[in-house]
Each structure stands twice: as C-alpha cells, then as structure tokens.
C-alpha cells in the first residue's frame, strides 16, 4: 500500500513538474500583464513541433533541439506580441482577451497542421533518458527523473531571476504598481516584451521536455489550454511557489484519480479545482489585485 502511494506520488510529481514548467510562464504573464492568454498551450505546441522537426528531419542532438525549439518559438511568437498582445496588456476586459487569444490559438493550430500535417509528433529521447531506472521498489523511466530535475531547476532559476536580479526588481515593481514604476523611469513596455519572451520560451521548453506525458498532437493547444489556465488560477497569478503548489496538488488529484478510479476521467481533477477556487478565489498563494 505504501509503495502504491509512493508510486502515485512519483508519477504525480513528474506530471506536476511538466504542468509547472509550462504554466509558470502563463502565471508570470498573468501576474504582470493581466493577460488571460489562452494561446499559451499553442506556444508549447510550437515548441514541440520545432523540436520534433529538428530531431527527426534536421538530425540535431536532443539538447540542441531544446534550445532551437525555445528560440524558434520566441521568434515566431514575437511578431504576435508586437501586433496583438500589446493591445491587451493590463487594460482590456477578460472577454476581449479570451477571444483574441483563442483566435491566436486557432490560427496557430490551423497553420501548424497545414504545414506539418495532422499527425502526432514524436520527440525521440536520447539513449541516456529513454531507459528505465531502478529505484529499488519500482522501475521509473529515466525521462521522468529528468523532468523533475528540469522542474526544480526552472523554479530555482526563476526565483533567482525574480528575487535577486535588477530585472526581477523592476519586474516586481511593475507588478506592484505599473504606473508608479513607469514614472520612476522603468520602461514597462520593454519589461512586458521581455516577460512575454520568457513566458513563451518556458512554454516551449515545457512542451518539449513534457512531450512524453503530454503528447504533441494537432489539438494539443486546445486540449491542455484549460489545464494550464487552471493551474495558474489555483496557484495564484504571478506566484512561483503558488504555481509549484498548484502543479503538484493538481498533478496529485489527476494521477490519484486515474490510478484509483480511471473510469471517472478528469472528474476528480475538476472537483479539486472547484473546491480550491471557491475557497481561495485568488489562488492558494496569490494576492488580491
């Protein structure tokens, strides 16, 4: 029984870490720019497509493929930021944001599938990550351990970036009071663009390393759109510890539900969401805006 619990815990943790890596970008964007970006999953999907293309058609190595995917996704997303996202930072109502970003997600899905075809894109793992690792009580795919390490590193680096650097100080100032930060000479527009690039890059990174758990397929952007949004809402927009807690909690709810009552699908996941959001409308660790 204890081993089952530990098994569920491990699976939940690796799933939660994937959720975290992808959602944290969305969370930061929501905390700073107040944008409900439903196209976030589409950027993760672009990352997955690019990595798959780089690995299978261009034949580059796994680490380089990740880097290329992240940079490529940022390059693709940047015109969208310049033309569209800038209009909805901070001021628009949610409905406008939802519609604009759903529109962007639809266009990305349509175009991506037109160019690359409507099949599931596999991202082959290097030999080092594809084998199992014996933990003594069960075998676990090495890839899951890699995902957990990636998640922990992402959280740590982000914390350093936001808590310890000049950029982070400006970012936090802009989150707390955008107008005041602007009048103190912080160029919030540049800050927003940099944050957007960071968020998109994280989405692409998560899309690539999480591809074993969330397979990259034509409707990826729609299928997980809701999941990422839910993680942000449960954790509290803009909070790194909140996103970690929410990812693990929701990963646990989902994995436990699927282990113990698979026929209920995502029932327990959404039940947990309703309970948490009803009790903590600003998220577990979020702040009131």
């Amino acid at each position: 029984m204890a081993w089952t619990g530990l098994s569920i815990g491990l699976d939940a943790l690796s799933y939660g870490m994937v959720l975290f890596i992808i959602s944290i970008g969305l969370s930061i964007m929501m905390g700073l720019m107040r944008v409900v970006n439903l196209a976030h999953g589409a950027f993760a999907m672009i990352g997955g497509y690019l990595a798959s293309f780089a690995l299978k058609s261009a034949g580059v190595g796994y680490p380089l493929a990740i880097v290329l995917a992240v940079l490529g996704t940022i390059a693709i997303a940047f015109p969208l930021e310049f033309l569209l996202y800038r209009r909805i930072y901070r001021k628009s109502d949610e409905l406008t944001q939802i519609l604009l970003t759903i529109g962007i997600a639809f266009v990305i899905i349509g175009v991506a599938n037109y160019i690359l075809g409507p099949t599931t894109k596999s991202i082959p793992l290097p030999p080092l990550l594809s084998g199992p690792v014996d933990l003594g009580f069960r075998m676990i795919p090495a890839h899951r351990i890699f995902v957990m390490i990636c998640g922990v590193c992402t959280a740590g680096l982000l914390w350093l970036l936001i808590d310890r650097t000049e950029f982070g100080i400006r970012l936090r100032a802009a989150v707390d009071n955008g107008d005041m930060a602007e009048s103190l000479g912080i160029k919030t527009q540049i800050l927003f663009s940099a944050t957007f690039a960071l968020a998109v890059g994280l989405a692409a990174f998560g899309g690539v390393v999480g591809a074993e758990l969330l397979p990259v397929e034509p409707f990826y952007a729609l299928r997980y759109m809701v999941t990422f949004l839910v993680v942000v809402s449960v954790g509290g927009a803009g909070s790194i510890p909140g996103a970690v807690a929410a990812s693990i909690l929701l990963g646990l709810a989902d994995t436990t539900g699927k282990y113990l009552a698979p026929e209920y699908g995502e029932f327990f996941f959404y039940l947990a969401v309703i309970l948490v959001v009803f009790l903590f409308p600003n998220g577990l660790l979020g702040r009131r805006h």
Partner: protein
Amino acid sequence: MTDRAMVDGMSPPRFFVPLELRAVAITLALGALGYTLFPDDLAFLTRLISITLLVLSLDLVTGYCGVATLGHAAIYGVSAYVVGNACLAGHSDPLLLLLVGAVAGAVMGLVSGLLVTRFKGLPQLVLSIAVGQLIAALANKLSSLTGGSDGLSGISPGRIFGVYAFDMYGRTGYVFSVAVLMVVFVVLLRIVHSPFGLLCQAIKDDSLRARMIGARVYPRLVLMYGVSGVVGGIGGALNAINTGVVGLDSVGFERSAEALVMLVLGGAGSLWGALIGSIVFQVFEHYVSAANPFHWMTMVGALLIAVVLFAPKGLVSLGGLLAGRTASVLRRRP
C-alpha cells in the same frame, strides 16, 4: 442606452412597430428563407436553431451580465440528456419534453450561476470551465444514463398536439423549431427590456454602482443564469427531439467555446447579435468545415482576431453603422 436603441434597430418612430412584432416577422422570414435555401438539408437548419438557442442563452449571461463563461454547454447537454431519458422512459409528447428540458436547464443554470457568478475575473472563468468539464466527465462516466461515448440514441418523440408526426425529411421538426425560436426570442426581448433585464445591464456596466443604488447583485445574476438555463435547456431539448441522438459533444468544451465565438462574432449584448452571429457562423461552417477542418480553424481564428480588433461590438454593430450611414445619405438627398 442610445447605443442599445440603435443596435436594436429602433429608427425614429415615424410609424411605430412594436419590437415583438418585428421579431416575429423577422424570425418567420428567416425561417421561410432557410426553407427555400436548404430544402434538402432541414436537419442542418434544425441543428442550427438548437445551437442558436444556446447562443441566445449565453448572450443573457455574457452579453447582458458580463459573465465570461466557457462552460455554458453544460446546461445545453444536461438538458438534452434529461430529455432523452424522459423520452426513453415513455414521456414522448414533444411539448412536455420541451418543458422537461426547460426545467432541467433552469436547475443546471441556477447551480452553475451559484458557483460562477460568485467571483469575477480569472476565478470566474476557471469555475465556469471546471463546471463544464466536471459535467463532461460525468456524462462520460454515467454511461447507463448517457450512453457514454456511443451517445444516447433511440429517442423518438410522439406527435405534436397528437397530430403532427416527426417525418423523415424533418419538415415537422423544422417548423416546430422555428416556432419555438420565435416564441423564445419574443419572450427574451421582453425580459431584457424589463426592469430586471436593465438592472442586469447596470450590474454589467458597473457592479459597484449597482450595489450602491441598492441592487442585490449576486441574486440577480443567479436569477439571470436561471433564465439563461431555461433558454439553453430548450435548445438542448430541441436537439434531442429533432436528432434523436445525444452525444458527448453536446456537453463538451468545444461546444461552449464555439457558442462564445458565435456570440461575439454577432455582437454580445444584443439578442439580434446572437441570432446573426449564430446563423452566419454555422452557415459558413457548413461549407468550409466540410472541405478542410484545419482551414476552418485558421479562418475562425483570424475572424476572431479581426472582430476583436476592428468590430469589438460584433457584426450587428457594423450593420447598425451601415444602416446609419445609408439613412444619413438618403436624408441628404432632396
């Protein structure tokens, strides 16, 4: 309010035609037009009408109350399943089934309203999604009631008034649906222009101010959600009665998102907008989606972006603008 008057197409009252009468005339004209254009595809039109009711229902909460929701199909789907089960249990009178659907929709609407309108912003959106997904997961699980992924089939309603049977060409179903749409539309026009409807719009514009003048915001919103549930429930009931099958797609996230897209395309906050958006979207979908679903997604996405950027009030505002221009051009002539 001048804006709304323009949107509803109230020209200066030279000879005054009551709004309700105009609505009756327009729905009947649209019904006749549909019958002439698609005489061999009435099944498509009845489906269109059923979805139109869902969009109208969404308009009541999103357009008139400012509640952003991506889980409205829960109301539609639950009511369709309840009606399907009622029919399979032997209650086959179509009017009774409509009533059953309306009640089921009202209950579902009140429950979602209680959850969703409690908060604003992100928590509201996420709660609406979560309610929708919860219902979708349940529909998949309770396959004894819903047929699971096979769908609930074999629903065969009886004769309307005991006289008019549902024929295989769907003529009876079509006339029945147009009539239902007409009645619902007229009643909704009355409701949104009633003091209650106006109060809901006031809450949407500025909920703090509405509270200050003594409106009880939360109960009003929940009540409007209930009304919206009745309309969505009737839509779901029509779906079950006309097609005889209820599938998982009728509770899914895609259905909710699509309804929102239709509403915004036509113009949220106007019943005419909901009507126009739903018709335009579905007629286009009928042709383009059949050719290539991914081209269709790209088009819808681009259209959404264009609407948000260039016509934030939807097609209906463009229509109003055009009508205004034409009127002023005509007036300038001697």
